[in-house]
């Protein structure tokens, strides 16, 4: 492959390039073109002067975030919860994929796969209602159950400490099927000869998983982890708003950067401030990815993404 001249290779792959074109276009239009807007973070924008004409204000727009007194809590919640979602999401995704792969009856496997994948398509609004049906204080399923077995009902929407767990479970339930399909595709792509060789050497099922499947999945896991790391400073706004119902009493553990920004700025209606926080989240994500990749490069060069 290396030997073929570049032009020739291009010709061969023209179809592939064309297939990638819409993706590139979307990326270019929605990710690169708006990048220019970053300067809004340093401006006091008003539309009569235009974006370029509005006065520069330096770092003024960033002040509100750090002066809020909750900046640390917001970052802790955002990063902490996202890491929880990432770790458990990937873990369950890989596990589910391995299990699905072991089911011989293909139709059963497909059924399980569909069931696992289904929550991925449910809108967060609906998920919010599921959660409410389970946890609300008046007629919630969980409180009814507690009542039946003779325990005191709990005001779930007032108990900040249980929410990281609840949210992780919901996130895993919703995302697991999606990741399991990615990983399943990875597993299916592994050459069966490796397994045969392992079996000839006397490997048990767990050995096969440990020494064949996982090493082959590692690059895929790495890519997913890196993608998640890049967005660790961005919380899924739909998720946080709908599932927590913006309940004040559980904000200690569920208030994240994005919900804070929306809350502050619906009061103020200031674009520059939200642009500033957006930039901050992006820069933090970038630093995180670069550091992670650097560390990986240092200890395990093969697995590094770039």
């Amino acid at each position, binding site marked *: 492959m290396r030997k073929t001249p570049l032009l020739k290779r291009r010709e061969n792959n023209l179809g592939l390039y064309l297939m990638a*074109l819409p993706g590139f276009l979307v990326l270019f239009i929605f990710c690169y073109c708006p990048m220019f807007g970053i300067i809004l973070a340093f401006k006091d924008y008003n*539309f009569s002067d235009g974006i370029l004409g509005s006065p520069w204000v330096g770092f003024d727009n960033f002040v509100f975030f750090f002066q809020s*007194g*909750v900046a640390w809590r917001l970052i802790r919640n955002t990063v902490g919860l996202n890491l929880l979602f990432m770790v458990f999401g990937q873990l369950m995704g890989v596990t589910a994929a391995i299990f699905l792969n072991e089911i011989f009856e293909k139709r059963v496997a497909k059924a399980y796969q569909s069931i696992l994948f289904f929550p991925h398509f449910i809108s967060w609004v609906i998920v919010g209602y599921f959660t409410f049906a389970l946890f609300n*204080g008046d007629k919630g399923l969980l409180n009814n159950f507690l009542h039946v077995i003779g325990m005191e009902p709990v005001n779930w929407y007032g108990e900040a400490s249980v929410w990281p767990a609840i949210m992780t479970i919901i996130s895993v339930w919703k995302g697991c099927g999606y990741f399991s399909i990615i990983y399943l595709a990875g597993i299916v792509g592994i050459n069966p000869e490796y397994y045969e060789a392992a079996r000839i050497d006397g490997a048990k099922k767990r050995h096969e998983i440990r020494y064949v499947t996982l090493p082959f999945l590692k690059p895929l896991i790495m890519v997913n982890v890196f993608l998640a790391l890049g967005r660790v400073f961005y919380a899924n706004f739909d998720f946080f708003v709908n599932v927590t119902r913006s309940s004040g009493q559980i*904000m*200690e553990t569920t*208030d994240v950067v994005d919900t*804070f920004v929306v809350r*502050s700025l619906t009061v103020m209606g200031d674009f520059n401030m939200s642009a500033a926080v957006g930039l901050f989240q992006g820069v933090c994500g970038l630093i995180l990815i670069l550091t992670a990749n650097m560390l990986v490069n240092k200890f395990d060069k093969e697995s590094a993404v770039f």
Partner: protein
Amino acid sequence: MKKIISMILCGCLAASLLASCGSENGGESTGGNSGGDAVNLKYYFIAKTTNTEDTKEIQEALNEVTKEKINATVELHPLSFNEYPTKMPLMLTTGDDLDIMTSSNFLSYTSVVQTNGVLALEDLLPEAAPELWNMYDQERWDAAKVKGSIYMVPNYDPSVSYPGFWAIGELTEKYDFDWENAESWEDWEPFFDTILEKEDGVTPILSDADYWGRLWFPGYYGYEGVGSVKAPKGQDLVVVKADDPNRKVVAAPFTDEYKETIELTRKWYEKGYFLQTPPTEAEMMSLRSEQKFATFAVPFVGEGDTTAMAASEWGGATILQAKIKGKAPIITTGSATSSGNCVAKASKNPEKALQFIQLLHTDEYIHNLLNFGIEGKHWVWKDEAKKVIQYPEGMDAETCGWVPNTTYQFGNKAALQYFQTEAEVDTSSRVEEAMKSAVYSELMGFVADPEPVKNQLAAISTVCQEYAEPLERGLVDPNDPDKGLAAFQQKLKEAGIDEVVAEFQSQIDAWASENGK
């Protein structure tokens, strides 16, 4: 072969992508049927129900008149109650193509001005719309000034409101509760206890997780909000006693009244008067139409007739407007600038826009066309002499294709609007009467500028969400050391409430001395 097919497919995909981007801009500009050199005005407002077909018809009827009178056509852009407050500020800030928009409680005058997207009108008004300019006293125009400029033509919609409940008449009658003479909140307790005891599945006071169902409302205690400093879903936070001649600014959570109210709320919550977990507004509405409640706490119990509202939103129950008799009616600056029409900076024809607004204030036909639709199709006379209208045979609020349900939006309601029920005819004279006894605010005409303290306000909104929301709903004990009132006050101080109070105080003092008050 495969390759060619895939290439064609990709090409199609890319093309359709680009095409779908392009077509969106195309559709926008062809709306108005501007013939000759009539200019086209885009008018944005809030409306409950407006079918596309009916909107078109009304637009055509409207344009016949406007073309003749001001040589302009008007394009109607009704938005829903949910859309309006989120979409309009964006459109204004980004300088989107629009000419006229309404401001009301759903998108306050202060927030509209803050977007920097509306035009200062004081120079244009006397020239472009002299009739409108001379129609109202200078005081009314002064009341609409922000930092010396008028950004809105206020509507004339006098109203007086009282603290109290909207109560279901069938229930008060069943348990023989004397709602008319309830002097205080506590007088309602026996009724609520009976409901809890005898009516299964009925909540005494309906509340939701957004705005409704709080007992705390600054206006109940004669306070008036300053500068729209609010908890995200809640009430004014920085207030002035409306009748205080010194206009001393205070933060509401530090007042005794606040403490008393949240203690009462907590007591009632623990007794089970409210739902344990507040529902969303949509869920609340469905509970409401099923009548799974006895009362609904509202800050604006008024004199108006509730039959129409009860039929459309309350499943046909009898809705009583139960005032708490011991409390004074509320009139604030809010009511001077509570609704009106603004001209966007982006407008290319601000003079024409003002002339259209003038028509809203002077032309009976146009005013009622926008409010109620076309005669014979959307409404018919019930009593033409008294100007009472009703839905045509076989039509109601649900089936009619044009029910903006926002009678305050389109100009001079008091002088021009038809009545929807017989009862409203008397009501309007009762309102005039009540206006005389109402407490007028010392702040009438002051509009605050929150810009200098916006960092503090951002922090305060989080504190309010976390502490005020649960406290004002009775979800936590006010004496709780971590989540109670003391903690709330402490957090407010840390977020800079003192600076906000000081800033508004100095703005008010400056305004007062400038205006010789």
